[in-house]
């Protein structure tokens, strides 16, 4: 361990320091009410972003901590999304929690810890790192979901999340054990090298099956999705947003890291498994979302559907392993690019949307049914607009980030079909497209409620709570970002493409 290692985990250390700072301040007096607490958390995350920015130009795909993590564009980019989403969550939560008298310092600590876990997952190239990144994240989220523990839905959500989540962790660990047994290595690169060229041993396949189940649970891929609607619905709304955005980012990061190893062998069976999983996920997510009465729950199901689209890109991913270094890369940058952009777009829109829902939620819970949005345009025109844009982005309408994301994912599928000549990829793209048509239906119900319905008379006189600056800032920023990213990745100075460029150059420098 040397300075390079420390520098490399600086993005994690900043939030860690902030979290510890908050804990340290939590003496006799309650910390929640202190303005310092969220400030500190924000500083921690900004620091993390700063650290990523500092690392950006020079990162070289280097292994740190003897291969525990790797510093590359992919991981850092995920780190950015995670940090941004966490930041947004914190900003949104301040007022949300205050109104519900739950402004605990621990909340921020847990968000920061979860963020660390997520970043770690994105950076990891070792089973242990993945597992513990995932656990740090999960355990924080179990608790965050139950933050409103005196409310039965929140407690129930927490409990269910914990039970199913632990079970999934069990599967993951067991799978890792199998994989370890098959290869004698806990290192992704090591496994990769060992597997290069040959067929994976049955034990490894078995292990991958279990690991796939464990990770699929986190992204809520069918059939490991059933926990999600309940948990999302019961959790505090800002936390739901955080889960929807962050967990997805981290878990997909991990999935890509893990399964790129296997793809080098072009495992048809794994591909077809993921194919079915992807189709099932998007279909079930979308269809079930149609029947929802609560916007929050609808978004929960839609989050399942989005996992399906992302899986689609993973199905068609063409991994490539550098046998000399064990470092994995991607032949089909399209697919990973697509996923990254998708995650970014999805994360922003989701956090924004849940932020608005959090604002609209009644203090005692509830108030998030479709009918509750009726005519809201009259009372909150800007929020209505923002929510509409977020919905459009999630639905993948051009002009929003979601469209470019959707484009990237489907482009990956089409490209793969083109280069491999595998028509099932094409079919997958078509199924995905049909699914997004179903998705349109429920996303559009939101703007319809907002704009086309009239405000119920009973609500005419209702006084909406004040909109604190932090909230406004987050919504406005997400709104602008959603629209801005809708113009494509290249309008940003840093974006997916540069990140991928970095990945590539990293590969080259390693050879």
């Amino acid at each position, binding site marked *: 361990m040397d300075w390079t290692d420390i520098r490399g985990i600086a993005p994690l250390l900043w939030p860690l320091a902030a979290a510890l700072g908050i804990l340290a301040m939590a003496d006799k007096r309650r910390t929640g009410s202190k303005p310092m607490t969220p400030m500190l958390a924000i500083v921690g995350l900004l620091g993390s972003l700063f650290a990523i920015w500092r690392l950006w130009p020079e990162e070289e795909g280097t292994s740190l901590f003897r291969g525990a993590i790797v510093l590359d564009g992919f991981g850092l980019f995920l780190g950015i999304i995670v940090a941004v989403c966490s930041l947004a969550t914190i900003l949104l939560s301040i007022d949300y929690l205050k109104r519900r008298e739950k402004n605990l310092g621990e909340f921020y600590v847990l968000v920061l810890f979860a963020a660390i876990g997520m970043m770690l997952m994105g950076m990891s190239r070792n089973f242990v790192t993945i597992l513990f990144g995932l656990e740090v994240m999960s355990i924080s989220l179990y*608790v965050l979901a*139950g933050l409103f523990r005196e409310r039965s839905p929140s407690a129930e959500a927490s409990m269910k999340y914990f039970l199913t989540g632990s079970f999934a962790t069990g599967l993951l660990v067991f799978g890792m*054990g199998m994989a370890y047994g098959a290869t004698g290595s806990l290192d992704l690169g090591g496994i990769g090298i060992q597997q290069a060229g040959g067929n994976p041993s049955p034990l490894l396949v078995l292990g991958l099956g279990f690991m796939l189940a464990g990770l699929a649970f986190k992204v809520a891929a069918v059939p490991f999705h059933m926990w999600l609607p309940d948990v999302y619905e019961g959790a505090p709304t800002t936390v739901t947003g955080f889960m929807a955005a962050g967990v997805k980012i981290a878990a997909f990061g991990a999935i890509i890291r893990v399964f790129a190893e296997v793809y080098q062998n072009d495992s048809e069976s794994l591909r077809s498994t993921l194919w079915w999983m992807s189709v099932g996920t998007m279909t079930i997510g979308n269809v079930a979302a149609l029947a929802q009465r609560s916007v929050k729950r609808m978004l929960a199901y839609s989050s399942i559907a989005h996992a399906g689209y992302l899986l689609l890109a993973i199905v068609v991913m063409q991994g490539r392993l550098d046998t000399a270094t064990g470092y994995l890369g991607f032949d089909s940058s399209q697919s990973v690019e697509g996923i990254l952009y998708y995650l970014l777009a999805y994360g922003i829109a989701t956090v924004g949307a849940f932020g608005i829902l959090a604002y609209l939620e009644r203090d005692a819970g509830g108030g998030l049914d479709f009918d509750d949005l009726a005519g809201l345009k009259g009372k909150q025109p800007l929020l209505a607009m923002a929510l509409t844009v977020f919905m459009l982005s999630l639905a993948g309408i051009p002009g929003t980030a979601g469209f470019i994301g959707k484009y990237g994912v489907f482009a990956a599928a089409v490209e793969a079909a083109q280069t491999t000549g595998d028509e099932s990829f094409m079919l997958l793209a078509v199924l995905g497209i049909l699914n997004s048509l179903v998705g349109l239906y429920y996303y559009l119900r939101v703007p319809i409620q907002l704009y086309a319905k009239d405000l119920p008379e009973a609500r005419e006189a209702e006084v909406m709570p004040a909109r604190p600056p932090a909230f406004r800032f987050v919504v406005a920023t997400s709104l602008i970002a959603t629209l801005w990213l809708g113009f494509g990745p290249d309008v940003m100075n840093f974006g997916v493409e540069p990140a991928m460029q970095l990945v590539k150059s990293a590969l080259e420098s390693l050879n």
Partner: protein
Amino acid sequence: METQAYLVVATLIFLIGATGFLVRRNILVLFMSIELMLNGAAMLFVTFARQWQQMDGHVMVFFIIALAAAEAAVGLSILIAVFRLRHRVNVDELTELKG
């Protein structure tokens, strides 16, 4: 002794844990089932570490034990929170959220 036998035991323990998850409704027992599953997994690591003659597996078991501890702590505290609300530890009654 063949390592395969150990592996079979590990798998059995793991599966018994999973079975517990499926048949019991007492949350406390479910927690124990999770512990069983983790132990099954840990056993895999130990066995394979022996087989490969490298101690990474042991390290993993060390970590798994910590993991189990963390999960137990959080799980039990969540259980306490739930229990405060309902005075029940029956998982089948946690069905307020559905649909």
